[in-house]
């Protein structure tokens, strides 16, 4: 029995690895066979996927709902755009894009450490509002700075071609996936999860909760910043605070993850994929009615599958299991 189970596990595992490899290969060669339109959909999908996973890494496991992702995303964009602009003008040394993106992530990491130290004492809705406020303040201050101090709205920087943008975002998604998977399986990831289950209990067994929380928040912010940096390549040479700090980036990672099912490994992946494909399809099919329908779908999902898509899948699985067991039982001869 045990052996059979083990065998089954390795079998599913190899299948999973093959499947992942296949998907990766398809994604890596996508620019060679997809049209620009489908490629742009794929690129946006990958971006939302990485953002949802980064968000879920901290907020999903600790249950500290952060609504401030736009702050880190926007700073990632702004840092990269500004650096590109200044190095193009000759003020800063010219660096390869990955290094700039890395720097953008590190800036976010440092900033999130400070924000986390201050805000992570608060729980629940208070933490959510605080992170949201932080993103509003940063976005507003940048806008004010640009208009009143420098006198120019936004930042211009050299343009990137479509392929570079796609591969930058693709690479960033892979890095995010790898890093979060590794961290989630480490002691650190377990500690984060434990804080989500019961913070008091975690503290009692010797988890340094405030340190772990702050570090987790900073890592999540760093990953979001990476994606912001890579996303800069996709913008057409211009960015301002309204584009970079759009409130959509505050809410969408949370919405997508909850849609897929928070607290599960595949939740953010499935949620972001479903949401971005669905909204793209509705946008094309229904033009301006699409947000109305999207709203209806969101509400329907919350009501009819409150644990997200993954929760629904689990439910179907368990009911099937029970049904097949109970169906088999009476067949046994007495």
């Amino acid at each position, binding site marked *: 029995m045990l052996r059979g189970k083990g065998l089954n596990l390795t079998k599913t595992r190899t299948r999973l690895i093959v499947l992942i490899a296949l998907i990766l290969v398809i994604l890596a060669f996508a620019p060679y066979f997809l049209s620009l339109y489908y490629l742009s959909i794929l690129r946006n999908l990958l971006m939302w996927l990485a953002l949802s996973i980064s968000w879920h890494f901290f907020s999903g496991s600790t*249950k500290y*709902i952060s609504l401030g992702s736009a702050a880190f995303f926007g700073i990632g964009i702004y840092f990269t755009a500004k650096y590109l602009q200044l190095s193009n003008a000759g003020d800063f040394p010219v660096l390869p894009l990955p290094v700039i993106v890395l720097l953008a992530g590190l800036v976010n990491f440092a900033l999130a450490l400070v924000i986390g130290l*201050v*805000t992570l*004492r*608060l729980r*629940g*809705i*208070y933490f959510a*509002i*605080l992170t*949201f*406020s*932080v993103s*509003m*303040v940063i976005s*507003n*201050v940048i*806008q*004010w700075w640009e*208009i*009143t101090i420098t006198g120019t709205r936004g930042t211009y920087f050299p343009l990137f071609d479509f392929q570079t943008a796609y591969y930058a975002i693709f690479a960033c998604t892979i890095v995010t996936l790898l890093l979060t998977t590794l961290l989630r399986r480490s002691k650190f990831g377990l500690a984060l999860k434990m804080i989500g289950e019961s913070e008091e209990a975690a503290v009692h067994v010797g988890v340094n909760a405030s340190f772990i929380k702050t570090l987790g928040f900073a890592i999540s912010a760093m990953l979001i910043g990476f994606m912001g940096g890579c996303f800069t390549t996709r913008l057409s040479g211009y960015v301002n605070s309204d584009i970079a700090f759009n*409130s959509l980036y505050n*809410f969408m990672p*949370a*919405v997508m993850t*909850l*849609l897929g099912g*928070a607290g599960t490994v595949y939740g953010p992946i499935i949620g972001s994929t479903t949401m971005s494909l669905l909204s793209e399809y509705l946008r094309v099919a229904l033009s*301006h*009615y699409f*947000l*109305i329908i*999207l*709203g*209806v*779908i*969101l*509400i329907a*999902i*919350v*009501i009819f599958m*409150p644990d997200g898509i993954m929760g629904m899948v689990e439910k179907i699985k368990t009911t099937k299991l029970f049904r097949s067991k109970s169906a088999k039982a009476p067949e046994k001869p007495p």
Partner: protein
Amino acid sequence: MIGIIINGAILGAIFSLIAVGLNLQYGVTRILNIAHGEFLMLGSYITYIFFTLYGVNPLVSLVISGPIVFILGILIQIVVFRKLVHVSRSAEELESRSLLACFGLTFIIQNVVAEIFRGTPIISAPYLNVSTDILGEPVPLNMIVVAVMSVIISLVMYLVLRFTSIGLAMRATVEEPAGAQLVGINIFKIHAVSFGIGALLAALAGSMLVMIYSNITPYIGPQYTFIALAVIILGGMGSFIGSLVGGFLIGYVYYASLTIDALITLAVVYSFLIILLIIRPKGLFGR
């Protein structure tokens, strides 16, 4: 200086009214209604419709927009949120799910209104737009009327909560939901009514705002939602007095920063909120 005192108080009165509604909804139903500003916007649009089509005085249209949005709020609570309360196992779960549902609501309400009013992207129903003097400071008359009405409505709300049986039931539900059920309060009814009243208060505020401002669009809701959120967090969730005091505080901060530099207003308001939350995590009057 007098200008700041008067104008800050006017803004404060309006903000308080908006926040009282949101606070009531959160306090009783534990649902943080991110779509609160959308009910406000609905109020503005209903007033606008009656003002332009039938020439109804915007102040009179309060008795039209209020009940319409009240019924809408009750319907939404019954159809959407009652179900959510049933399927959620903990307060945290309910909070995150209602966030998702409120998003959906925001999308629906905003875009339905935008779709209906595609021809007129910006609306206003100017009323009493004449200047008067208060202590030598010129202030538009409609602003004063709106501020006074807001204070009156908030006070009426306070009296309802304090002295009527339904108000008592609401306060009991806030304090002890299980206990309230034990003594025979139908908390599902109370939830629906509170949600409806919250929406009604937002609609009343919206109806009055459309007389003052000429920048009402279908997408104006979120900015008021966020101000209301700032107010109730500042004052303390579930505290009525907190909403009033918080509303005036935010009103003053908002107006003071507006006079210094209009572009930095949001940053100032939210920095103020962040600092206060760090000093007093449960808000000024929170328990």
